[in-house]
């Protein structure tokens, strides 16, 4: 048993996913003493590892590669169509998006590739293309608009997670629209007897010296003439510092990129690991455990630690992270803040008090009030109480705990986490907290 310990800080961040980590790093850079409390990995570790900011709402479904608008312009369009979306709620402050993305790219520099003016179009294992404003270095070479030559989808023998022929056939559809030619090949990762691998096991097995190089050589041997880049399953190492993608590409002699991941997502775990490394490097104190407390200025308990800070950033995520829970009705469990849901023009706390099952619709493409339920905030990211006033002094919220976006499916999840985390962290670093 560790003895109780009192910790004082300027800013307490609750939640260690993308939103919490970016908030803590932004507050730290602004000079604040920051403590971050986190219970476990959340949605960030389950994401594809590529950062969706704003799919262009005017893009035609069959023509994703044409929607090459820069992220801020796409986010502004989205905000005009979706008045509850955090991008719309932020008003003028949405203009900080490029700065926030540049900040994230900088603090996660070893992992993330530098952003382009346009999104990169990355391939899923199902052969579709998804725009990403920021992505990992291991994913960048797969940008469908940048491949120079044919794109080779390399399935790995013994890995059940990818049907390379299916992916290649899907990608061929984009050829008429500016995408590359796509082929499928199968390569043997050379990992010996072990028959079938799960993604995490394969990723770990590729980390030791020699393993990534052997895979690279196997890819090289399988390449057809005219190959410009190879796409492999998203299994290139769990730990960023093992540098598996770089080693595979060097041995293959051509750019190698990972496909986007489904769960369980190796690149998502890598993103979470990179966030934790950045927090440690910046001098943010991370405490492990579920936080219980009454809000800014009052002591909060995390395990045996008692943490007091005048300003808090609540970045507890949605259903996966635990920031919003279903207990009959929808609740925010840390501070008991009202959860709002919107259905068509109707919005409010009453809706969230309905049985959760009544907040889903049968039409898959229609709005799903349950999936966009969360906290309502003002333009300064201060959570609002039932009457629309800031719920507590010095309290900010960021990331998926904010309502108004379907974070896991609308293509804005990690973008919202970065922008709101950045703004909330900087606001919380200022003693006045706010303007």
């Amino acid at each position: 048993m560790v003895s109780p310990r009192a910790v004082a800080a300027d800013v307490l961040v609750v939640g260690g996913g993308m939103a919490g980590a970016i908030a803590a790093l932004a507050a730290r850079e602004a000079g604040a003493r920051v403590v971050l409390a986190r219970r476990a990995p959340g949605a960030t570790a389950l994401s594809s590892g590529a950062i969706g900011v704003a799919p262009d709402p005017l893009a035609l479904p069959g023509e994703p590669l044409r929607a090459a608008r820069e992220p801020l312009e796409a986010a502004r369009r989205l905000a005009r169509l979706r008045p509850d979306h955090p991008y719309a709620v932020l008003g003028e402050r949405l203009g900080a998006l490029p700065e926030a993305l540049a900040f994230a790219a900088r603090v996660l520099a070893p992992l993330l590739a530098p952003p382009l003016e346009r999104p990169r179009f990355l391939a899923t294992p199902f052969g579709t293309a998804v725009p990403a404003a920021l992505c990992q270095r291991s994913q960048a070479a797969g940008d469908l608009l940048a491949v120079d030559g044919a794109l080779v989808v390399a399935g790995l023998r013994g890995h059940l997670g990818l049907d390379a022929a299916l992916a290649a056939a899907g990608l061929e559809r984009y050829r008429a629209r500016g995408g590359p030619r796509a082929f499928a090949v199968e390569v043997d990762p050379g990992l010996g007897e072990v028959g079938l691998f799960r993604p995490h096991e394969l990723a770990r097995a590729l980390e030791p010296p020699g393993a990534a190089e052997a895979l690279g050589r196997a890819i090289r041997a399988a390449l057809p003439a005219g190959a410009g880049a190879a796409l492999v399953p998203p299994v290139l190492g769990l730990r960023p510092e093992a540098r598996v993608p770089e080693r595979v590409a060097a041995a293959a002699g051509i750019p190698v990129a990972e496909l986007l991941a489904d769960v369980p997502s190796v690149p998502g775990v890598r993103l979470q690991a990179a966030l934790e490394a950045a927090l440690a490097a910046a001098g943010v104190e991370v405490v492990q455990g579920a936080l219980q407390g009454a809000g800014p200025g009052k002591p909060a308990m995390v395990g045996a630690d008692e943490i007091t800070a005048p300003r808090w950033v609540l970045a507890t995520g949605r259903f996966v992270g635990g920031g919003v829970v279903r207990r009959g009705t929808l609740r925010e469990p840390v501070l008991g803040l009202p959860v709002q849901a919107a259905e068509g023009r109707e919005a409010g706390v009453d809706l969230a008090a309905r049985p959760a099952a009544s907040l889903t619709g049968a039409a898959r493409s229609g709005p799903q009030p349950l999936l966009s339920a969360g906290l309502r905030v003002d333009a300064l990211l201060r959570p609002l109480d039932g009457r629309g006033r800031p719920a507590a002094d010095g309290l900010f919220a960021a990331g998926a705990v904010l309502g108004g976006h379907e974070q896991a499916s609308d293509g804005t999840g990690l973008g919202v986490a970065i922008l709101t985390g950045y703004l909330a962290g900087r606001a919380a670093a200022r003693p006045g907290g706010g303007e």
Partner: protein
Amino acid sequence: MATRAGALSYLAWRALVAHPLRRLFRRRGTGLERFRAAYVAEGLGPTTPEDRAIGEAASACVACGLCELGCELAVAAPAVRALGLHAAFRLYSRSVAELPLATSALAACAGCDGCDALCPTGVPISRIVRHLRAKVLGEGAAPAQGDRG
């Protein structure tokens, strides 16, 4: 026709002779003992309130697989690789009759608690694994180490 008559006479024999005789001479005992005598042999043990609490805790699992990253056994032991411990309780925690299928995976758990802090939805994994393990290996079968009750 013959089979039908045979079946009916078998049922009649059970209802009129075998069952009354068994009632006359059956072992006395509490309801639980009699329930066990009748059903445990078929793999259908009684569901205790603790079992129900464990089933409820396990139902928060979203099958994300993150807990396996912290479980060294899931990498090392073939039985656990084939059936991760989280899969064991996802598949079998509510189906007592099938729980024995997960025996080797459950038996491999070292009780190290490496998994709990990795679960996004807060499933008390090591507690559930301990409970299922005790159930399938016989009461009191505690993991080698690190059991914090």
